[in-house]
């Protein structure tokens, strides 16, 4: 473990040097950086993705718009997707016999505004390499078992195109409020590594 620790210590020093150079050049200050992290973390949360899904479960017209044009539909809920650069959001719906899984094999593209910062496993070499080759094996590591008759579609994100899974509404939630439905939706359910 000492190697990992050392590497991280080295990186911390390099970042200090970088921040000092940017401060010196009046590009930004450490305080601005910390404030921007806090602001980002308070805005970009999986609760946003959950809110989108709950709305789609209760409002078939919204669901139709969401699947047709993800950007426009989430904008209706006041969610801005362009945290760094404009991105195209495509929402893919799970249905009986059909499951969707999201990966970014090239790096880590991910709808941050809807899901918050991505988990380390999403950015890992193991997930990036295997999700497209052995999705059932990957799902099993999350404890998610799908029947052999369920077709899995794996969506490979790019810098321009980001995906969100619309899970199936759980049985027995007919009377549930939109808020209660949103509380059932997990981040992994929105990536497709879990069912909701």
């Amino acid at each position, binding site marked *: 473990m000492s190697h990992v620790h050392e590497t991280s210590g080295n990186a911390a020093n390099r970042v200090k040097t970088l921040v000092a150079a940017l401060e010196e050049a009046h590009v930004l200050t450490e305080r601005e950086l910390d404030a921007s992290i806090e602001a*980002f973390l308070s805005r970009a949360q999986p609760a946003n993705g959950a809110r989108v899904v709950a709305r789609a479960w209760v409002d078939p017209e919204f669901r139709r718009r969401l699947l047709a044009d993800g950007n426009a539909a989430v904008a209706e809920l006041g969610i801005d997707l362009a945290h760094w650069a404009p991105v195209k959001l495509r929402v893919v719906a799970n249905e009986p016999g059909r499951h969707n899984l999201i990966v970014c094999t090239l790096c880590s593209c991910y709808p941050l505004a809807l899901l918050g910062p991505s988990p380390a496993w999403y950015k*890992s070499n*193991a997930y990036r390499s295997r999700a497209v080759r052995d999705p059932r094996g990957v799902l099993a590591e999350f404890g998610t078992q799908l029947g052999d008759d369920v077709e899995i579609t794996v969506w490979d994100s790019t810098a321009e195109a980001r995906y969100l899974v619309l899970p199936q509404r759980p049985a027995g939630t007919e009377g549930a409020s939109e808020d209660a439905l949103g509380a059932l939706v997990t981040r992994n359910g929105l990536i497709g590594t879990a069912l909701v």
Partner: protein
Amino acid sequence: MSRIHDMGGLHGFGPLAIESDEPPFHHEWEARVFAINRFLLRAGWYTLDEFRDALEQMPPAEYLEASYYERWLFALESLIRRKGVLDVPGR
């Protein structure tokens, strides 16, 4: 020619390491790297495509050795070096 970042389908990386209750960042410097990149992208220093390209220029052996945010740090440093710290548009 495919570079090392093009990982889809590769073998040999083993099982996933799935953490429960994972924090958004594991070290303060990771959050800073994330925030610097976000700031410079939004300020127009470089585009997302340039950032990705800088990541993908990392020598394969270093890329495999590095953690995720160490790769980002490499890309940031190389872009800032290339662009020149004093060449600051918009401020």
